[in-house]
């Protein structure tokens, strides 16, 4: 057992090293080429030269958003797949993503909000409400929430909200303009202050998620077995849903619907960690952050002098890799 443990710790360390490399690349590479020396000097003693401003007020926050959103979505996806026991579950399945999208578009359409920093909070509020509604609907009746009712209630509410959003977007071009950029997802050009506002939600979410892992392991043996092992099924589910909502809500409101991270990263992490959630969650967090940063850096490089949104490079580059992984190895089932 100790050999397995050492192996897992070692792989985690390697993944962390990758994350560090990705973060360095993300600070160093951009559409304006700045020499590594200038980047270092910008980080150590920031002046007000152009390159110092670019590094400190654009690239560093952007890297922070990438790590935070990637980790949040990776963990939320792993939790979501564990709780619904469904490989198709993404972090937005509880209606979080569509709830955020709907309230944002409504805020633009009905209240005429145009400031990104304002409608992000509408998005976060919408994510919370939608997730609560799905959990309540999935829990109604006796026996607490089961995987199938949670998944189906979530899919139904998501579809409803998505339809309402589509309706609004068809009526109003300004809303469409906000929506089409939001739904493809981006971590560029976000207000650095937002990073600090997002951080507490993500941290609380991560803590809840890691406390949820042992319970989720028991639940994956089936609810009856979990109950006989002394698990309070309802409580475990509620904590899981709270963690998913905080993580996904914060990430999605700030960076848009980056669905693929939450969907694919847990599957890829499961190849390395196996099905144990106590290991799967940290692996997913690190892998999610790395993937998002690498995709973002590639997006800056491939379309010079312009940039490609991270959501797009993520899927266009990450997905073929993911498919190759699925084809080559026997998938680790949930």
């Amino acid at each position, binding site marked *: 057992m100790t050999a397995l443990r050492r192996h897992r710790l070692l792989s985690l360390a390697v993944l962390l090293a990758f994350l560090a490399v990705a973060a360095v690349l993300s600070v160093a590479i951009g559409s304006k080429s700045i020499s590594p020396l200038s980047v270092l000097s910008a980080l150590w003693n920031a002046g007000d030269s152009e390159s110092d401003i670019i590094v400190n007020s654009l690239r560093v926050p952007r890297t922070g958003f990438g790590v935070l959103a990637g980790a949040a979505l990776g963990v939320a996806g792993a939790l979501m797949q564990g709780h619904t026991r469904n490989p*198709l579950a993404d972090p937005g399945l509880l209606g979080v993503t569509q709830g955020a999208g709907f309230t944002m578009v409504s805020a633009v359409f009905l209240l005429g909000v145009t400031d990104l920093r304002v409608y992000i909070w509408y998005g976060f509020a919408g994510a919370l409400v939608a997730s609560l509604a799905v959990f309540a609907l999935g829990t109604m*009746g006796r026996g607490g929430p089961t995987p199938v009712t949670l998944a189906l209630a979530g899919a*139904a509410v998501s579809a409803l909200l998505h339809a309402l959003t589509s*309706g609004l977007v068809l009526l109003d071009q300004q809303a469409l303009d906000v929506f089409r950029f939001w739904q493809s997802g981006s971590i560029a050009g976000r207000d650095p202050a937002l990073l600090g506002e997002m951080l507490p939600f993500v941290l609380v979410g991560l803590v809840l998620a890691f406390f949820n892992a042992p319970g989720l392991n028991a639940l994956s043996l089936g609810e009856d077995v979990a109950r006989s092992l002394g698990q309070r099924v309802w409580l475990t589910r509620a904590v899981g849903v709270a963690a998913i909502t905080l993580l996904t809500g914060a990430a999605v409101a700030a960076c848009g619907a980056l669905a693929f991270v939450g969907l694919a990263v847990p599957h890829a992490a499961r190849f390395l960690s196996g099905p144990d959630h106590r290991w799967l969650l940290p692996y997913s967090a690190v892998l999610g952050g790395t993937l998002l940063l690498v995709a973002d850096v590639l997006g800056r490089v491939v379309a010079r002098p312009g940039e490609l949104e991270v959501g*797009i490079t993520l899927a266009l580059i990450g997905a073929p890799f993911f498919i190759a992984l699925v*084809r080559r190895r026997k998938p680790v089932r949930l």
Partner: protein
Amino acid sequence: MTLSKTSPPPVRRSSVRLARASFPVKARALAVPLAGLGVLVLLIALSLGRGDVPISVPEVVRTLFGAGDEGNYWVIMDLRMPRALTGALVGAALALAGAIMQTVARNPLASPDVLGVTSGASAAVVAVVVLSGSAYGGVSGLVAQAGVPAAALAGGLAGGFAVYALAWRRGLDGFRLVLVGIGVQAVLVNLKYWLLTLGDVNDAGRAMVWITGSLNGRGWEHVEPVGIALAVLIPLTLLGARTLGALQFGDDTARGLGVRVDRGRALLVLGAVLLAAVATASAGPVQFVALAAPQIALRLSGASQPPLIASAVTGAVLTLGADLIARTAFHAVELPVGVITAVLGAPYLIYLLIRQRRRA
């Protein structure tokens, strides 16, 4: 923990025997599609009557039998009938594809979306609209007539076969199919988003109407392909129903029962790809029908997995009902049907979920 001590009520099951084949027949499983067909006929009659020129249902019937007004005949047969039939057929095809996918993947969230069909079609159409939209003065004329449906069919089939080929490794494993589908779908969906952000916002708006699914201005030329595809594919998929029935117990058990699992599943998934591609080419990816209709039919007929015929009928009713609302409820604007299917279907599915749990 409470364990019920009472034994379950005895199962009374009548069966039909034809030569060497026999089928169990459950009254409820028969009643649902029959009732659904009744509702469908009623909806078609209503749909033919409602619109800018209101025609009463008796008048509709009289006109259909050739005893009515000349102008009404034109309105009904040339404008409303093809649209109603396209709606019903597209809904049935999508629901059938969804029922197959949910059973093959043993996953209630699976739908033709996972097969890459709808996302492939959407990406292809957005490409055509955005890249040629302004140059041709919008999606009208030739591009709308031939380009969009052809692009949708080609894109849908390409997406479907990409998933199919990539998931194939000595047979088609349901779990791998789902994972590969996630990957391919992500590529195609983001390709679509990218194209949407690339183009002019007016083109993006026009493309949005199509990718939400719309039955606006559908003529007989849209009815024919779906009609023919359904006429061929429904009997074929029903032949595969035996495989589907066994698949719910898992691959090993199904093999033990003497079912040729891999061949059966490969054929069924192929059928689902074709059904979804043809349907999507006719009306766009009408959202939510493929996911919800099989689950609604499942709960209504009390079966253990989505029943094929009942799912198809439910899908037709859902789509046609949604189109009727989309077309008539808001006088000035006509919404795409894909917006209403979820508004109509989602609350009903949630209601069924809650009711089922209350009983359980």
